[in-house]
């Protein structure tokens, strides 16, 4: 058999268990796709040219090749967060997320490119050069988990790991046409993931199908004593799929469509709304949701503040290079954070933003009294062109306007493919639910995927 790299996890597991092919062949096909496409895509920072002797197929992910975002520590493998500060860093331990994956049998075949330190929504600010969007090499993959999303749609791996602080799983998933599942804050441990904005950092899967994402989530979630903010629940259990959405109320916020929303994005999302309506959902327009512009401001202050603290530890003494290796983007963020936390400005910036965060959480509580889940576009646009971030110091914040509110409130959300624009770039639909209601996100995404075929399309490479 050939092209085993094109399989989903579910298909590959069936093939492995029925001995149609071996785990060695599966890994070899992924590595050969990487070799073929990397000169064009640059989705990986480090490729782990692993030669496996055997795989424990009894395990739920036994033999499955994964790509992991380069801000997850994997013991013995170089981990850079796409920053030259960590160019020489070999991880001394593994993140809980990737150790649970490996315990479940996953094989890590490489570390994927990202915006340096996850600061951005383009993967253009990587110190290792931008990743290209597999659908059109002149366009960006989104970010910060852009390498992971590109690697999945380009079939360089079967599934990937990403992390989201405000959009970094969902936005690249949308721009690359794959599934990106951001769990409730605290559902998946942050231990061993290089900290960015610790109060919203949420690791999660990026996959070809919703069932693959749900399988991964069920294996890596659950309380971790090594992360004090991890929620006190056992691992998440995938619910039964629904055969109809009858009885379910889904809200669509008027404020999530603006003059910046591209017509093709709006049309694809509205056609997804029709599909959900046909499947039985009652669609309710949410006219009084808090304007997402406030989330940009809250996110900007809190992200910069937490970054200035989290990046203080990189001094080149215990690991990595010294602070002169930071790029401009990181310097800018560290400095704004230092400013907003400094004496005389703390109340006006940091504390004010934390109070507005309360208003954002309360607003979602109010909306979820009217509806079970909220849907909308992931991004106002499809993938922008390479170079779009130049001179745009607020690029990421403005791109992620529709994702920041739910991230700030710690809600679970997903991006699933729901259409294509007129030049063939994918459009993503986001589904948001109350905290710890990944079951609803899964059920709505699953029935949508079962009734559409956007997730089956692949770029010509």
């Amino acid at each position: 058999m050939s092209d085993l790299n094109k399989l989903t996890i579910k298909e590959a597991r069936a093939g492995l268990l029925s001995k149609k092919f071996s785990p060695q062949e599966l890994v070899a096909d992924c590595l050969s796709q990487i070799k073929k496409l990397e000169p064009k895509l640059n989705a990986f920072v480090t490729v782990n040219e692993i030669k496996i002797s055997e795989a424990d197929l009894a395990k739920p992910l036994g033999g499955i090749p994964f790509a992991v975002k380069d801000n997850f520590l994997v013991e013995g493998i170089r981990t850079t967060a796409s920053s030259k500060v960590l160019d020489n860093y070999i991880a001394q331990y593994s993140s809980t997320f990737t150790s649970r994956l490996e315990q479940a049998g996953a094989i890590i075949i490489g570390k994927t490119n990202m915006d340096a330190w996850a600061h951005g929504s383009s993967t253009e600010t990587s110190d290792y050069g931008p990743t290209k969007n597999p659908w059109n090499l002149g366009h960006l993959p989104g970010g910060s988990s852009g390498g992971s999303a590109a690697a999945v749609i380009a079939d360089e791996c079967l599934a990937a790991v990403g992390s989201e602080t405000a959009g970094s799983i969902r936005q690249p998933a949308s721009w690359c046409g794959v599934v990106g599942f951001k769990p409730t804050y605290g559902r998946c441990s942050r231990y061993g993931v290089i900290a960015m904005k610790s109060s919203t950092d949420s690791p999660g899967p990026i996959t070809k199908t919703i069932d693959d994402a749900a399988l991964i989530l069920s294996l890596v979630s659950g309380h971790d004593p090594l992360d004090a903010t991890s929620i006190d629940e056992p691992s998440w259990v995938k619910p039964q799929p629904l055969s109809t959405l009858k009885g379910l109320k889904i809200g669509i916020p008027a404020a999530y469509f603006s003059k910046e929303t591209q017509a093709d994005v709006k049309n694809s999302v509205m056609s997804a709304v029709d599909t959900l309506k046909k499947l039985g959902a009652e669609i309710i327009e949410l006219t009084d949701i808090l304007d997402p512009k406030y989330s940009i401001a809250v996110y900007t202050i809190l992200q910069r503040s937490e970054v200035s603290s989290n990046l203080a530890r990189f001094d080149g003494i215990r690991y990595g290079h010294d602070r002169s290796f930071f790029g401009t983007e990181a310097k800018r963020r560290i400095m704004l954070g230092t400013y907003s936390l400094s004496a005389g400005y703390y109340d006006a910036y940091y504390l004010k933003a934390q109070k507005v965060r309360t208003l954002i959480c309360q607003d979602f509580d109010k909306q979820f009294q009217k509806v079970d889940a909220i849907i909308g576009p992931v991004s106002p646009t499809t993938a922008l062109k390479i170079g779009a971030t130049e001179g745009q110091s607020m690029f990421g914040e403005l791109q992620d306007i529709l994702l920041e509110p739910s991230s700030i409130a710690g809600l679970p959300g997903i991006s699933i493919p729901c259409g294509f624009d007129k030049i063939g770039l994918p459009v993503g639909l986001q589904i948001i639910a109350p905290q710890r209601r990944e079951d609803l996100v899964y059920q709505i995404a699953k029935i949508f995927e079962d009734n559409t075929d956007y997730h089956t399309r692949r770029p010509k490479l």
Partner: protein
Amino acid sequence: MSSNVITDDQFQHIAKLSRLEIKPEESYIKDQLSEAAKYVDVLKELNTEDISPTFQVNHKKNVFRDDVITPSFTQSQALSQAAKTKDGYIVTSATIKK
């Protein structure tokens, strides 16, 4: 949030607090900081007088663990990534003048 313009002195002070060296060709960062400060000005529109802050969305506090020693790094693991080591210690630059 009265003034959004960051002065040269403030800029230098912030760089010092951040332990960052800003090269002359990066001085445009100063204007970008002012620009970002402008973006956050919209928060003034919202009344937060009786609102308490949300520092943490899953409302956990004081998470303790038992005071029990668990396996951790060996000395060689802990030192493996340090730029300079001597006699089992990490070498740093002097913090006290001789």
